[in-house]
């Protein structure tokens, strides 16, 4: 290795050198720009035949709603789905990456992926990045050992639960679950409870809104109900459309073509090699 002024990390991964600079700037009052978070209410519950996951569809960038109908339920494997809260880029990148790793694992082993495999791959990655990958996930699926539901926090800790909620609307959703959840729910009861929990998040939390997505996973079968419920339709659309009055009147139009001034030089220098 020749002498270089720049310190390159010998292996890949993040270099945290700029974090000190950012901290110093923050102390002086210069803050980082806010990034796109999913605000969010995400939930999951285990019912008698499997797992149901639910999510709202609002993505926020500070106080602005930047996506009114985003997809928060991510595909991990044919039998495993994952809801993501936190920074949208982080949840998407991390679920995509682990989904890829699970696919390779399936090829090598010739078997269906297990939920704990996805869980371990995710938590390893998140722990590695010490919480800087801001992804709070609700992972659910059905594999050969039965239905499983887990929550994963940005720092890499996990919980295994019969029902779980994450995101800014998690308290609103958990209130619904705590009062109405019981073991051995049927599929319709489960979907209704998930919808109630998400709606509670949509209507009572600013960071969540728009529509409800539901995903039902059972042994050998999954149903991804995108926009299962649309409780916020756009009702008042002006039928006449919008027309904006012209600002200033045009009195006179005069076009003056610019004269070309092109000089042709014969036998110029050849281009440098």
């Amino acid at each position, binding site marked *: 290795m020749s002498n270089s002024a720049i310190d390159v990390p010998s292996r890949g991964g993040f270099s945290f050198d700029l974090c000190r600079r950012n901290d110093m700037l923050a102390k002086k009052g210069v803050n980082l720009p806010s990034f796109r978070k999913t605000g969010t209410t995400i939930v999951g519950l285990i019912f008698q035949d499997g797992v149901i996951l639910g999510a709202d569809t609002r993505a926020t960038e500070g106080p602005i709603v930047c996506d009114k109908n985003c997809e928060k339920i991510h595909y991990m494997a044919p039998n495993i789905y994952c809801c993501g809260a936190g920074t949208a880029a982080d949840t998407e990148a991390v679920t*995509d*990456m682990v989904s*890829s790793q699970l*696919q*390779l694992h399936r*090829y*090598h082993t010739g078997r269906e992926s297990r939920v704990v495999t996805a869980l371990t791959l995710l938590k390893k990655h998140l722990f590695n990045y010490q919480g800087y990958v801001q992804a709070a996930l609700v992972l659910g699926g059905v594999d050969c050992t039965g239905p499983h539901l887990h929550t994963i926090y940005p720092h890499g800790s996990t919980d295994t639960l019969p029902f779980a909620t994450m995101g800014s609307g998690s308290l609103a959703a958990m209130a619904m679950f705590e009062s109405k959840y019981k073991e051995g729910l049927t599929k319709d009861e489960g979907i209704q409870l998930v919808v109630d929990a998400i709606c509670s998040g949509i209507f009572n939390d600013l960071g969540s809104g728009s529509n409800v997505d539901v995903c039902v996973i059972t042994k050998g079968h999954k149903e991804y109900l995108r926009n299962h419920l649309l409780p916020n339709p756009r009702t008042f659309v002006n039928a006449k459309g919008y027309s904006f009055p012209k600002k200033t009147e045009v009195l006179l139009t005069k076009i003056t073509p610019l004269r070309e001034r092109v000089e042709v030089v014969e036998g110029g220098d050849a281009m440098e090699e």
Partner: protein
Amino acid sequence: MGDSQYSFSLTTFSPSGKLVQIEHALTAVGSGQTSLGIKASNGVVIATEKKLPSILVDESSVHKIQSLTPNIGVVYSGMGPDFRVLVRKSRKQAEQYHRLYKEPIPVTQLVRETAAVMQEFTQSGGVRPFGVSLLVAGYDDKGPQLYQVDPSGSYFSWKASAMGKNVSNAKTFLEKRYVEEMELDDAVHTAILTLKEGFEGQISEKNIEIGIIGEKKEFRQY
């Protein structure tokens, strides 16, 4: 590659301009079990003999035909362990392509990348070329495709091809039997007949392996 003690390649030119190691690799392939592939108008079929060294071997654990992606499969002639390594690398490359471009990898791209890996091992320090030739069969939006990849890293697209022990007989048989616009079922039939030609002993579903790819699917059958 290059993290061994050797910084020089073991594959060097002979005075006549040949790479002797690759010739030897091709000989290794030529003494491997016969495999063949046929491209039909609506799919591709690949097949191979599966002769096990002893009747005690659990034949259900041996998979000579592997799928690299849901719509691309591969079979080999030559050294099994080398094949496993290549399959692993190809699968990883296919996944990486998919992650980057969010589209399933086209057959030609995967063949190109696999061939690049095989070529690397003919030019890197301290490693030997792979002792396998691959037949990659796939179906993407360009239609059904069949490629053969050699230890040197060169690849060719074939309408029908064979490799391994009985290659000359098999190829002659295929040349006679191949028809343009052949349907997939006829191709499977022809493939089995071709295998039967060079087969020592009784052919049965337990000692051959067949991979068929119709539109966007990869099956495996015995």
